[in-house]
C-alpha cells in the first residue's frame, strides 16, 4: 500500500530520509486549506453556521468562510434548491476558481428531499453542478458536516493533480 510520506534509512548510520511526492505536498496544502463559501439556502445553512461555530469549529481543519466565490474552494449547497435559486447557484459555482469542490448537504440538496414533490424544487443539486460528497440528513448534524469535509480532504489527498489533463481538473473517485 502506498504511503504519502515514508521514512527511508539512508546510508549513514542513524540517519533517515523523508521521501514524499510533489503531488502529496500539493495535496496536503490543498486539503488543509479548504475555504468554503458563505452561502446558505435554507435550514441546512443554520447547521452549517453551527459547524463553523465553537462546538464543531471547522477552522480546526483550516476551513474558513470566504464571502467571495473567487477565493473559495468548497461550496456547501446547504438547503432546498428552487429552480429560481438553481440558476444563481450554477452561476456562483462557475464563478469559483479551480480547484473547486462541492458538498451536497442534506436531503434536499442530494435528491430534493422532503420538498421534492414541489413544483419549484430542483431534485438534487447534481443535476446542475458536479458533486463530490453527498451528505444525507434533514438537516445533517455539525458532526456529519465535519465528516463530509474530512471526506473531501481524503478525496483531495488521493488525487494526482500533476498527472491530470487540463480538461478533467475535477477529481473523480
Amino acid at each position, binding site marked *: 500500500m502506498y504511503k504519502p510520506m515514508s521514512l527511508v534509512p539512508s546510508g549513514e548510520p542513524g540517519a533517515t530520509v523523508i521521501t514524499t511526492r510533489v503531488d502529496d*505536498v*500539493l495535496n*496536503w*496544502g*490543498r486539503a*488543509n*486549506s479548504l475555504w468554503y463559501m*458563505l452561502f446558505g439556502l435554507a435550514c441546512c445553512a443554520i447547521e452549517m453556521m453551527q459547524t463553523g*461555530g*465553537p462546538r464543531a*469549529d471547522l*477552522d*480546526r*481543519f*483550516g476551513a*474558513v468562510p*470566504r*464571502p*467571495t466565490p*473567487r*477565493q473559495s*474552494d468548497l461550496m456547501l449547497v446547504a438547503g432546498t434548491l428552487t429552480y429560481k435559486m438553481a440558476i444563481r447557484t450554477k452561476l456562483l459555482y462557475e464563478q469559483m*476558481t*479551480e*480547484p473547486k469542490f462541492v458538498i451536497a448537504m442534506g436531503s434536499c440538496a442530494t435528491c430534493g428531499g422532503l420538498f421534492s414533490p414541489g413544483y419549484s424544487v430542483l431534485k438534487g443539486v447534481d443535476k446542475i453542478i458536479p458533486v463530490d460528497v453527498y451528505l444525507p440528513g434533514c438537516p445533517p448534524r455539525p458532526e456529519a458536516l465535519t465528516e463530509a469535509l474530512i471526506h473531501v480532504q481524503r478525496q483531495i489527498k488521493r488525487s494526482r*493533480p500533476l498527472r491530470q489533463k487540463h480538461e478533467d481538473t475535477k477529481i473523480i473517485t
Partner: protein
Amino acid sequence: MERLADYIVYNLPFLQQIPRVIVDLIIMLFFATCMLLFWVALFAGITSWVERRVAGRIQSRIGPNRVGPQGFLQWIADGLKCFLKEDFVPAAADKKLFLLAPYIVFAGMFAVFVVVPFGDGLIISNLNIGIFYVLAISSLVVVGILMSGWSSNNKWSLLGGMRSAAQIVSYEIPVSLAILPVILLTGSLGMQDIIRAQGPYPWQWFAFHNPFTFIAFFIFFIGALAEGNRTPFDIPEAESELVAGYNTEYSGMRFVFFFFAEWANLYIIAALTVTLFLGGWNTPAHLYTNLFGLLHRSVDVAGTFVFILKSLFLVFVIIWIRWTLPRLRVDQMMDVCWKYFVPFSFANIVGTIIWMVLADAAPVLGYVRYILFVVGLMVPLAIAMKITRNFRLAKSEIHLNPFI
C-alpha cells in the same frame, strides 16, 4: 546600511574593483530579499496563524490545529493552496490595472520597512526624513486599493475601494498631526533620533511625556488601525455589506498579496507606535549587549529584543481589538475622524508648543510624566480587573495555557 556596506567593502578587497554604486545596489537588493523572505513573509504568515488561534480562543473555539504541531504549518498550507489556485481575471476587467494593483499595495507596504528600526544601528536606511517618508510612501497603498476596486469592474469592489480611499485619506490627517508633537519634542524626523530622544523607562517615553502626547498616542494608534483597514475600521472589506470589498474579484496569489500586505502592515503599525511613543529600542545602559563584537558597537541585541517584544505585544493588542469590537458604520467612522480626532490633534500641537515653552520656565512640569505614567498604568489594570470580574460572574475558569 551605509555603514554595513562600508564594512563589507572594507573586508572584501575584491569588491573595491567594482564601482561602488553597483556594490551598494547589490548589497541593498540582497538585504531587501532577506528582509522580505526572513522577516516580512515569516511575520505575515505566522501572524495569520496566530490571529486565527487567538480568534479561536476569543470565540471559545480552538482554531487551526490539524496541520503540524498545534496547526503551526497552517499558513504554509494556505499559501501553497493559494499558489495553486486558478489565477483569474474577469472578462470585463481593466486587465493591466487589475494585474498591477496587488503589487502596488504590496510595494507601498514593503517600502515602509526601509525606515522601520529594529535596534540601535539596525535600520536599513536611517533617513533624516524617516517618519515623513513613511507617511509619503504608505499613501501608495491607497492608489493600489483604488486601482483594484476600479479595475475589477464590480460594484462591490468599487464600493470597497472608494470606502477604503475615503478612510485612508481621512485618517492620514489625524495620524500625521498626532506625529507632529513628537517631532516638535525631538526636533528631528529621523526614526533613530526620535527613539534616542526617549529613554528606557516608561516615564521617559513620549506617550507619557505630557498630557498632549498622551492623547496623541491614542489618536495615532487608533488612526493607524483605521489606515491599516483593521476592525473596528474594516468597512472597506465588510463581509456583511460588501462581498469582500476591493479584493472581491481577486483569486489565488493576487489575493494573498493583499492579505500579505495587511498582515505585514500590522507589524508596521506596531513598530511605528513603539518608535514614536513607546521608547523604541531604548534599554538601560548596563543591558547593552552587542552581537559578539560583530559590526563593532552598532548592533544592540538587548535593544532589538525589547523593540520586537514591544511590537509583538502591540500586534497582539491589535488582534485582540479586532476580535472584540464590532465594526463601525461609515458615517460613525468619518465622525470619529473629522469631529474628534482632527480638532484634538490640532489642539495637541498647540498644547505641546505651549508645554515646551512652559517646561523651560518651570522645570516642575517635568514631574507630570510620572503622574501620566501612573494614569497610563491604570488602563491595563482596569482592563485586567474587568476581565477577572467577567470571568468571576460567568463562573468560568481561566486557561492561561494557549495550547489545548
